[in-house]
């Protein structure tokens, strides 16, 4: 655990005024950020600029302006050294069906500059590591989706990268396969490899990541520890009573609370300074039996939606102002 804490302090990516356009369309609008190590969830709705950012970080697309540093190396000057220190697991198929798993992973290692003998030996180790030891001499065309995802992870790990980019690592996996992939990602992080996970599945990020880098419309809307995003609202409680939830709601509003529905539960915001006893007092005085009573904790999904909505409203306001 001490090692994980150490890598969290390390700044692995530094962006300064990063801009990237495709013709008239601005994909990245002057990003300024320092991304800390550990496991980072790269989140954002479709078209937010996540893929463009990954391409810029891999040196596949040269940026229009600004500066980018990855693991202390500058783009585009050190692009090949950066790629040597990065492992990339693409979202796309990216496996040759005629190759065996061992040939594919060895080939990936050799392309990263490893001597063939070393790459071959290490490919064996890595394939065992991801649970494909028994299938290493099988052609990739015979692999299931889950096995293909694992072999893609193996090719990203074979050359011993310091930083791993995982693009939709659990895409197309059944629950069992997804669980195994998340375990692997967690394990990789625990072994001191920085991991950037780009995904739409927020629960995967919640399970595996320390930090979140949230993007919308080419801009950063959040960059920091996941715990800061999933804050606990001290003045809001989730409440469920045995009968007539809407009636209880009216009584609480009379007592000065603000109420709303969160699924089948009531979300109650108490007046300033109260620790929730006002809800309990109201329930006793009005004869309601409380079944559920917890402080409201914001989930990553809620925080994500809230931040994206806020960013969209701001964009809309700015757009109206400009118009």
């Amino acid at each position, binding site marked *: 655990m001490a090692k994980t804490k150490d890598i969290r302090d390390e700044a692995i990516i530094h962006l300064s005024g990063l801009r990237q356009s495709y013709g008239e369309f601005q994909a990245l609008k002057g990003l300024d950020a320092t991304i800390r190590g550990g496991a980072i969830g790269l989140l954002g709705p479709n078209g937010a600029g996540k893929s463009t950012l990954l391409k810029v970080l891999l040196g*596949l697309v040269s940026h229009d302006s600004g500066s980018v540093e990855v693991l202390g190396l500058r783009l585009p000057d050190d692009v090949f050294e950066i790629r040597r220190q*990065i492992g990339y697991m*693409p979202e796309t198929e*990216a496996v040759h069906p005629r190759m065996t798993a061992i040939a594919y992973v060895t080939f990936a290692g050799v*392309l990263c*500059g490893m001597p*063939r003998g*070393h790459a071959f030996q290490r490919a064996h180790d890595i394939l065992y590591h991801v649970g494909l030891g028994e299938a290493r001499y099988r052609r990739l065309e015979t692999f299931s989706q889950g096995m293909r995802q694992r072999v893609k992870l193996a090719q990203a790990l074979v050359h011993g990268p310091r930083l791993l980019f995982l693009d939709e690592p659990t895409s197309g996996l059944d629950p069992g396969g997804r669980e195994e992939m998340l375990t692997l990602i967690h394990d990789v992080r625990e072994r001191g490899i920085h991991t950037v996970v780009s995904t739409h599945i927020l629960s995967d990020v919640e399970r595996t990541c320390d930090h979140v880098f949230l993007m919308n419309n080419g801009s950063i809307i959040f960059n920091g520890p996941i715990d800061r995003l999933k804050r606990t609202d001290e003045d809001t409680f989730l409440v469920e009573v045995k009968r007539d939830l809407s009636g209880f709601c009216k009584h609480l509003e009379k007592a000065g609370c603000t109420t709303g529905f969160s699924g089948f539960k009531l979300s109650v915001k108490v007046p300033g300074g109260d620790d929730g006893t006002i809800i309990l007092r109201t329930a006793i005085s009005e004869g309601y039996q409380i079944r559920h009573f917890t402080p409201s904790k914001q989930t990553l999904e809620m925080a994500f939606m809230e931040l994206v909505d806020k960013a969209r409203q701001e964009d809309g306001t700015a757009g109206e102002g400009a118009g």
Partner: protein
Amino acid sequence: MTVRDLRYAPYEGVSRSHWHSVWAIARNEMGITWSYFRTKLLLIAALVIDVIFIVLVFIEAGVINLMSEGPNAVTELTTAPVTAYVWLKLYGLILLFAATGCGTISHDIQAELMQFYFAKPLKRLQFILGKALGLVLVGATVTIVPGILIFGLRLAMLARTDLLGEALAQCGSVLAFELVMLVTFSFVILAVSSLTRRSGYAVLSWLAVIFIPDLTALIVGQVVDAEWPHLLSVTANLTGVFDVMITRTHDISVWAPPAAVMGIAAAAFGIVWWRIGVFERL
């Protein structure tokens, strides 16, 4: 066995130069091509032609030896068998590449492997050269390798005759021609293969690139009754290069076929360079 059973350790071994990747890609390409049954079948078919030519070498040596004492002694080697050999190799290679070479890049596009390649420390030129070298090595198994065997045997057979010098010149011309043909065809194959994700379309394009100019040259040549339409044909230009090598003459100009072949190879390289550039950024 799962991840928890083994300890992952970072790699701290040596690291080679980028150009090492060219050989890695070529070797990988050869492995994939060899994995197809049709490749093995075509190589065996090509072997039959080579065996026939080996027999012809023995017959030629026997005839020269028999007639060496009389007034009808052979004083110079005819170029007809060598030209026939070159034509057979030319069309054999076209067939081999149609069967196994056209998927070289289109399979990569179909399997979305470009991101796999270019997320590694790999330059576009290295990728293209690696792919081309792979095709050259596969093609060499039906051209240069048997060429060395057959013409090496011929040189050995004619070693004690006055015809050795001429045989050596023919041998050099054939091997040089085969290398030019392999390089040119490899780049043309890469070009057609990079234009589509469907290897079937790449095969059709490859055959069209070879045979449509052939037919055009034939028709235009008949109509205008001149030699210049042959410069439209890929195969005629290649055999023109061989004619220049072996006879030092050509019907139009000794520079025309080599210039045309270089132009074809350069245009093909340009197409591959552009297409891979597009995929690199996808």
